[in-house]
């Protein structure tokens, strides 16, 4: 009975995503945005909340908000306002956050996300502008807020512009949530308005998760889950939360409305604060700021100048360039679609080039702990590398070594091949001695091949390749071995 009930719940998930903009200056003052650096060196009377200081809106941040809104298919609000969200917290210099409330700059858009189960539409409720808070360093035994003896506050981050993107509760699975976040991130990157790094907090995602019996339209009680630092951890946190709530409901318990903290190491969520202690924010229009009323001309100019967005790019890669659907999605997600197109333009085969980018370059990124898009590889060089493979100069294995050299800044594929002495040996005379030696060294294998066991030839090929430090053309080695063992 209990289990049967459990299988009938569905998850209702909405995401709130914060994106830190990469403007030159903060949202309301002219302090430079520059990460790292000594504490409180990127501060001024405004972002320190000094008495008498006043905010002035960064026009570039408004532009970024409008561009994101347009990319998400939102309506741009003719007249929107900044509100104050009042609550006391030491990392908030004024003890209110300037945000937007009932009239945000963008309303009502949508994103279509693709998972293994197909396409799914997720509504966007709103996009609004606000300012970031400072950062507290908790001093004491644990280094965490709980149990700290005291805290030290750095306001360098205070006032950095944020866009908050709120989705409709249209998401049903962890995979959809991950796809949504990945797609939103790709759009933000395409627009160039943020570096959108989840690991470093320039993109942050909170998930509202609730369950309801399948077929019901009323929402269940939700928990807000915070502190997911990657797309992967968003998926894990939602899976965990669905399981936790399913367990509660199937055992006749209730879900408590609260904010929960995702612990990546422990792989679970725990209570951060319950609704009883949440604040009454006393929103009201900020009297220090005037309405944002972008005129239609500006909006249309921004619309016309939007870059090609990820969905359109993927479509074009598949339809016009000839890349597979999955590879197209990966290339766009990791920002290597431009390199691919350049490579194809320089004569590379689309599928082959895509393979190299999605396998080798991604692996390089993992090794270097860098975004794949940070790879110093042009489309022209990738095309050159592939040409060296197809004309027999390099084996695939050697080509990988050459790519490593190219990515390490050693030059073009041709230069690296030469400098490292990696040309494939395709001269039968040069390989003949090694072939003969291999047959002599492993008579058993040679006999098996003679007896018709074709697989046994692998051991002999391997021996030749070892002997030639991988440079022998494997096709030629194969051919010479067969000539010697089978043709007599």
């Amino acid at each position: 009975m209990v289990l049967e009930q459990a299988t009938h719940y569905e998850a209702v998930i909405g995401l709130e995503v914060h994106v830190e903009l990469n403007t030159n200056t903060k949202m309301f003052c002219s302090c430079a945005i520059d990460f790292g650096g000594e504490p409180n060196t990127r501060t001024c009377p405004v972002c320190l909340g000094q008495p008498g200081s006043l905010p002035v809106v960064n026009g570039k941040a408004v532009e970024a908000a409008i561009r994101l809104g347009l990319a998400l298919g939102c309506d741009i609000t003719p007249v929107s306002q900044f509100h104050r969200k009042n609550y006391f917290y030491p990392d908030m210099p004024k003890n209110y956050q300037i945000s937007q409330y009932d009239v945000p700059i963008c309303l009502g858009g949508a994103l279509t996300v693709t998972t293994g189960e197909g396409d799914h539409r997720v509504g966007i409720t709103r996009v609004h502008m606000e300012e970031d808070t400072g950062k507290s360093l908790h001093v004491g035994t644990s280094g965490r807020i709980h149990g700290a003896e005291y805290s030290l506050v750095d306001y360098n981050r205070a006032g950095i512009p944020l866009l908050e993107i709120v989705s409709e509760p249209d998401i049903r699975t962890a995979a959809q949530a991950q796809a949504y976040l990945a797609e939103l991130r790709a759009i933000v990157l395409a627009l160039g308005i943020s570096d959108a790094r989840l690991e470093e907090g320039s993109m942050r995602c909170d998930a509202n998760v609730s369950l309801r019996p399948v077929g019901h339209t009323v929402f269940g009680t939700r928990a807000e889950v915070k502190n997911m630092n990657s797309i992967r951890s968003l998926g894990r946190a939602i899976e965990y939360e669905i399981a936790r709530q399913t367990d509660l409901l199937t055992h006749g318990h209730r879900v408590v409305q609260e904010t929960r903290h995702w612990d990546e190491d422990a792989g679970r969520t725990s209570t951060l604060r319950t609704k009883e202690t949440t604040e009454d924010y006393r929103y009201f229009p900020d009297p220090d700021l005037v309405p944002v009323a972008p005129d239609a001309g500006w909006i249309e100019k921004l619309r016309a100048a939007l870059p090609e967005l990820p969905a359109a790019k993927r479509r074009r890669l598949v339809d016009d360039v000839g890349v597979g659907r999955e590879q197209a999605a990966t290339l766009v997600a990791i920002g290597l679609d431009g390199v691919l197109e350049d490579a194809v333009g320089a004569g590379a085969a689309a599928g082959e080039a895509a393979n190299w980018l999605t396998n080798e370059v991604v692996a390089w990124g993992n090794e270097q702990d860098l975004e794949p898009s940070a790879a110093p590889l042009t489309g022209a060089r990738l095309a050159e590398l592939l040409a060296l493979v197809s004309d027999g100069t390099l084996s695939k294995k050697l080509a990988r070594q050459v790519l490593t050299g190219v990515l390490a800044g050693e030059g073009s594929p041709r230069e690296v091949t030469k400098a490292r002495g990696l040309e494939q040996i395709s001269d039968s005379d040069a390989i003949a001695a090694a072939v003969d030696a291999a047959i002599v060294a492993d008579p058993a294998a040679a006999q098996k091949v003679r007896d018709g066991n074709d697989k046994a030839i692998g051991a002999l090929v391997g021996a030749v390749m070892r002997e030639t430090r991988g440079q022998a053309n494997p096709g030629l080695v194969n051919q010479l071995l067969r000539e010697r063992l089978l043709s007599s």
Partner: protein
Amino acid sequence: MSLSTDDVRHVARLARLALTDDEVEALGGQLSNILAYAEKVGEVAAEDVPPTSHPYPLRNVYRTDEARASLPPEDAISTAPQAEDGRFHVPRIVGEEA
């Protein structure tokens, strides 16, 4: 509108004021009187009257995105009641268990 002692305490908590019992007592009456007078705003101005938040209606006041010098670091924390390593000191923050 009459404010109970509990109302006053609730508002004082929102406003971060550690009021004394005497103050809570006195404020209950005073706030009730003032709000009773202020409530006269309800006698006029129907829903169709738009609210005015700025007497002089400006719109679209923006700054160019050009950085200017921040405060010298010693100035930034010069006003701090207590500082350590260039940061503002606060006693332990409770209420959240992150």
